[in-house]
Structures are given as structure tokens and as C-alpha cells.
């Protein structure tokens, strides 16, 4: 019966429908949510402490880092069954797939390396030594740069995918977490959790161009800990998850100024857009829910309980 209901739910959703995949760090599971209606469709068991996740280029496969199992699991998005895994080094946390659809870059926090995996051959291409506690990975859409942030070394490491090696390093504010290229690949945005700041780095010179320190009236400065960052394809707006400040900052990219702070759930980690760019989704680790933000009005419209410690999120166009 449930199967039919699910089928019905999937059929009812229009062509704008999107499916959200959310890792639940403490439930060892994946929450599957219909984005348009904001309903939890089902929960699928995963490996231990699932965190980063990403879809394959054609959307048929879902890769999920099961950190405590030291592997990246491969799920078929049609059946949501685990069909294999990738060698991912120890404690894989965040990863991204290169625009060529083949190279997957994953940070191994305990070993100070970034592992490059061939997703087709399911084998390790190489390991790249980086700073202490590698965390965020970002890849420019032109495929020319892969960057990795290291939390204790406080650097952005610039990896040239053609050489699979580091060619440059940029020192940033303490505890850099996530990184995101601007849509035109000219700038790189990096959040620094402990400094409570956002840096804009010029990709050509690899120098920090501008910085923004977040300040929210009535919120302790210590609680403002920027983590996930997401650039809007219009190259005008940037969204920054502020962790225990329980807010998402909407930043004007050109001015590097905050336009608005949106109150969301507790300890907001990561962000994702709906494919039609109508909605922004946030995972809120402590309040065990996701917030749904309407992008036109920049208003939080809904929150939905999904399970314990929602962490990563990725969205599939249906």
C-alpha cells in the first residue's frame, strides 16, 4: 500500500518537482523529501555517520560518504538501494565530482589528504597531501580548479586537476569550512567558522580580495559560525549558513554586504537550491529539520522534520 502512495506522490508532483536527498548523521540514514510539497517521502538506511553526498552527472547514481565506514556508498536513485561503494580513504566527509563526471575529490580529515577517485573504475587515482584537517571541496564549473580548505592549517589549497597536485595556497581566516566558486569562476568564496567571516578570493591572483564579518544584532559573536555557502546562478546573491546562529545570510556578491538574515532551524549546516531556483533548502543539524526558503521573497516558508542530525543535501530534478 505504501508503495502505491509513494508512487502516487511521485506522479502528482508536476514537472517542476524536485527530490531532496538528505544525509542524517545520527540516524545512519538518508531522508528523501519532495521539495515542492515539502513532504518526507521515505527514509533509507545507509552506512555509519553519512555526511557529504552528490549525484552522478546524469543523476542516476547517488554517492554518499559514510564517514565512520571509511567509504562512499553508491545508490541507484531509482531503487535507492546501495549498489556498491567507492574507495574513499579514511573518514571521508565532503566531496565533489569534477565536471568531467569521472573524478571525485574527497577530503580525508584524519590523514591530511584529498583522495581523487575514478568513479567509473571505482579506484583511487591519487592522494594529494594537504593541510591539517581538510574539509571543504569546491570545483570550478570550467573544471580548471579544485580547491580544498584545511581547518587547522587555515588555508585554501589550489589543486590543478590536470596535474592532480597543489599549485598554490591561500591563507584565510581561522577554521575555513566550505568553499564555492562564483558562477563566472572568477571568484572563490570561503567561509571561516571560528573567525565568523566570509572571504572573496580572486581566482586569477589567488589573493583574498575582500572580507565580510557577519554581525547579527542580539546574537553573540561567538555563535556566528559560517559553514555552508552557495552561489546563486544570477551571480548576484550568495547564501551562507551561519551554524549555531541559526540563520542564513543573504549576501550581495558585488558589494560583499549582507542584505538579510533569514531565521532557520538550529545549527544550519548546508544549503541547496531547487532546480527551478524557486526555493532554497537548509539542513539544520540540532533541530533535526530542514528549512524551506522561497527565493523570490526571501522568506522562510516551511520547516520539515527529517530525522536526527540532517547534514548534507543534494537535489535531483525530476
Amino acid at each position, binding site marked *: 500500500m505504501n508503495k502505491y502512495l509513494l508512487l502516487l506522490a511521485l506522479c502528482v508532483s508536476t514537472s517542476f518537482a524536485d527530490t531532496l536527498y538528505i544525509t542524517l548523521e545520527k540516524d545512519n540514514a538518508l531522508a528523501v523529501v519532495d521539495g515542492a510539497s515539502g513532504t518526507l517521502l521515505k527514509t533509507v538506511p545507509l552506512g555509519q555517520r553519512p555526511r557529504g553526498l552528490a549525484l552522478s552527472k546524469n543523476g542516476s547514481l547517488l554517492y554518499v560518504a559514510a564517514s565512520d565506514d571509511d567509504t562512499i556508498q553508491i545508490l541507484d536513485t531509482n531503487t535507492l538501494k546501495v549498489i556498491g561503494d567507492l574507495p574513499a580513504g579514511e573518514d571521508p566527509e565532503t566531496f565533489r565530482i569534477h565536471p568531467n563526471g569521472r573524478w571525485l575529490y574527497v577530503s580525508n580529515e584524519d590523514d591530511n589528504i584529498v583522495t581523487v577517485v575514478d568513479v567509473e573504475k571505482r579506484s583511487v587515482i591519487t592522494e594529494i597531501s594537504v593541510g591539517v584537517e581538510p574539509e571543504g571541496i569546491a570545483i570550478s564549473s570550467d573544471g580548471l580548479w579544485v580547491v580544498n580548505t584545511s581547518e587547522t*592549517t587555515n588555508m585554501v589549497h589550489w589543486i590543478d586537476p590536470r596535474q592532480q597536485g597543489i599549485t598554490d595556497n591561500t591563507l584565510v581566516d*581561522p577554521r575555513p569550512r566550505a568553499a564555492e566558486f562564483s558562477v563566472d569562476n572568477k571568484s572563490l568564496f570561503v567561509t571561516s567558522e571560528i*573567525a565568523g567571516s566570509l572571504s572573496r578570493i580572486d581566482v586569477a591572483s589567488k589573493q583574498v580580495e575582500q572580507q565580510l564579518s557577519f554581525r547579527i544584532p542580539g546574537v553573540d559573536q561567538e555563535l556566528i559560525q559560517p559553514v555552508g555557502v552557495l552561489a546563486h546562478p544570477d551571480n548576484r546573491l550568495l547564501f551562507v549558513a551561519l551554524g549555531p546562529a541559526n540563520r542564513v545570510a543573504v549576501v550581495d556578491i558585488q558589494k560583499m554586504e549582507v542584505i538579510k538574515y533569514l531565521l532557520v532551524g538550529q545549527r544550519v549546516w548546508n544549503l541547496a537550491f531547487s532546480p527551478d531556483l524557486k526555493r532554497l533548502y537548509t539542513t539544520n543539524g540540532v533541530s533535526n529539520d530542514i528549512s524551506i526558503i522561497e527565493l523570490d521573497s526571501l522568506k522562510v516558508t516551511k520547516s520539515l522534520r527529517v530525522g536526527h542530525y540532517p547534514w548534507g543535501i543534494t537535489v535531483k530534478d525530476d
Partner: protein
Amino acid sequence: MKNNLMCLRGLLLLIACLLMPVLAQATPVQLKIAFLTQKMPAAAALSNLDPVLIDEGLQGARLGIADNNTTGQFTGHQYSLQYVELAAGADVGQAFERLLAEGYQYVIVDVQHVSLLALAKRARENNVLLFNVSLADGELRNESCANNLFHLIPSYEMQADALAQFMLKKRWNKWFLVKGNEPDDKRFAAAIKRSAKRFGMKIVAEKSWSFEHDTRRTAQAEIPVFTQGADYDVLLVADVKGLFGDYLPMNTWLPRPIAGTQGMVPRAWHRTHERWGAVQMQNRFYTQAGRWMNDVDYASWLAVRTVGEAVTRTNSTDSTAIKAFILSDKFSLAGFKGTKLTFRPWNQQLRQPVLLATPRSTVSVLPHKEFLHPLTYLDTLGYDKPESSCSFNQ
């Protein structure tokens, strides 16, 4: 033939030119840090549960050096550690002079109170920075504070304030204070009394444990009698070496919780701490040391990281420049406690949250947000600027 030779010379020149930057990178700037520790006779242990550590602090410093060197491979800095271990009666001053002669500008010190005061004077004369990783008494941060001395370990006053803030929140306002005879017990007890006053707590009873009984056989009989009398909410114990405090839990006359040096303890670091990325730190340390990290290890790691962070940011190895940077607004250290760690300029104590822990759980991390402060909530722990009697000019 001549042309060929020219070509060869040109080629060699080209190779030389190509090699130059590689060679320049191959000789990184060296930065040496010393770790000076004086072994003390091990206290008579209450039980054989905890192994006596022979590498306390050293392992933290080693991990810090490894972390700094990982960063150093990108910045062209190379860090090394010299470990100097002295026997209980050895001359600390002499060992320090040797380090001065060898040009050490950064010295982590794990020595006794008296020795530290002497070293601080020599450090100042020689522009050397000292990092205290084990002494928690307030006097070193007040009357005896020294210009070139930085404190990485939280003071007894910071620890006691963390306890008091927790008790205030729980409304456990009536305290029974039990203290031992050691100098550190008296210092910790004094810190407890200061915190009680600061946070409006009442010490309803105070007793000294004088070791007149053979507690190994009679703890069950002695402790209930010893703790009879006044009614109280919580028993605070000051037994730094752990000579009797572990007998108190479950043996008091009234059913009351124990906190202080035993029971729920204030710590800079604890094996149960896992928030804010601390798990990674715990794992890295365990892999290296084969045991869990303790407060002195953590403080030593922080000391090495402080130097590393300042060297990376200033691109200088000069102690005057490093000191100026460490005390500036630009300096901040990430220490797995969810907030940036900075130094208090008035006594050079590292600001940091204090963990309250029981053997298998972190009960709370203090200060709580409710304790407000105009500058930073971290300054609600320990000697704040207006209370400080430290003067670096003396």
C-alpha cells in the same frame, strides 16, 4: 662543435635557472621550540587505575609540531622540538641557560612555581617567550605575572568560575568545601572561595582532610562521619593530586553530588569531548600517543600552535614580532571549543571555554551564553581586567 657547446651551456644555464626556485624552496625557514620539563616525584596514587604518564605535554607538543609542519610545507617553515627532561632535583636555571645559548626563543615550560619565576626573568632579559602549560595558580597571572610569560592552561580561578556558573544555573547555592593539605589544594580552595563570592554562592561548611585515618580500609566508615553536619547542595573538593577525593562520591552522609578536583571536574580538555571537530583531534592524538589527551597535552599543543599561527601570519620568526602579533586583535586560535581562542593582554592568559566532565561524559561547556560580558563571554571566567593585579612593568 662550438655551437653544440654553446647549446650545452645554454641548456645547463636553463636547468640551473629552473632549479633555483626549487632549491630556494628546499631550504625552509627553521623554527625551533624547546620543551622544558621537570619531573616531580610521583604522588602516592590512590589506585593503580591510571598509568603514570612519562610523556605528559610532550605528546601534545609533538602533535602541534606535526600540525605546524603540515602547514609549513606550504609556507616554507619548518618546526622542530627539543625536549629537555630534568630529574626532580636538577638545576632548571642551568638547563634554561643552555637553551638560551643554543638560541631558543620559544620555550614551553612544565616546571615548578619557583623555577618558573626565575626563568621568566631570564626570558625577559633575552627576549624569549615562555609558555606555561601546567601551572594553574592565580598568583602567576597576578602579582608574579611576567612580561614574556604566556599561560595556556586555564587558571584555578577560571576552573572554579566554570564550576560556580554551572552551580548557579542548577541553583546549587550551598557548598561544602573539603580541602587537602598540599599547596595546590590551598590554591584551588582559595579559587573556589573567590568564585563562590563572585557568583553569590554560600560556603556553609569547610573542612580539611588531614589523613589521620587509613582511608583504604575505612573510607566507607570515615567519609560519612567526616561529612556529617551542615546541609548543603554540593560538595566541592580541593585535592589536586587525587590523594583522597575519589573516596567522596557515594560515601557522603547526605546524598549529594561531588565536584571540584574529583567528581565533576573542570578541564581544559577531556577524552569525552567530541564537539566542534574535537573528535579529529582526539583521534589524531590517540594514534600518535597511544593514550588519550589530557590538559597539559592540550595546553602544549596550543602553545606550539600559537607560535605556528603567529609565524604563518606574520611570516616572521622574530620573538618580538611574534609576541606583538599574539597579543594583537589579529591573532586567534582554533582549539576545538567552538569559539576562537585569544590572549588576555592584561595577564597573557589564553581565553578558553572550560569543560565540566565526569569520567564518561562532558556534562557542560562553560561559560554559558547567559553569563554576559561587554567584551567576550569568555572573560566571565578567571581574572577579568578590572580584577587583575598584574603589572608587566615591575
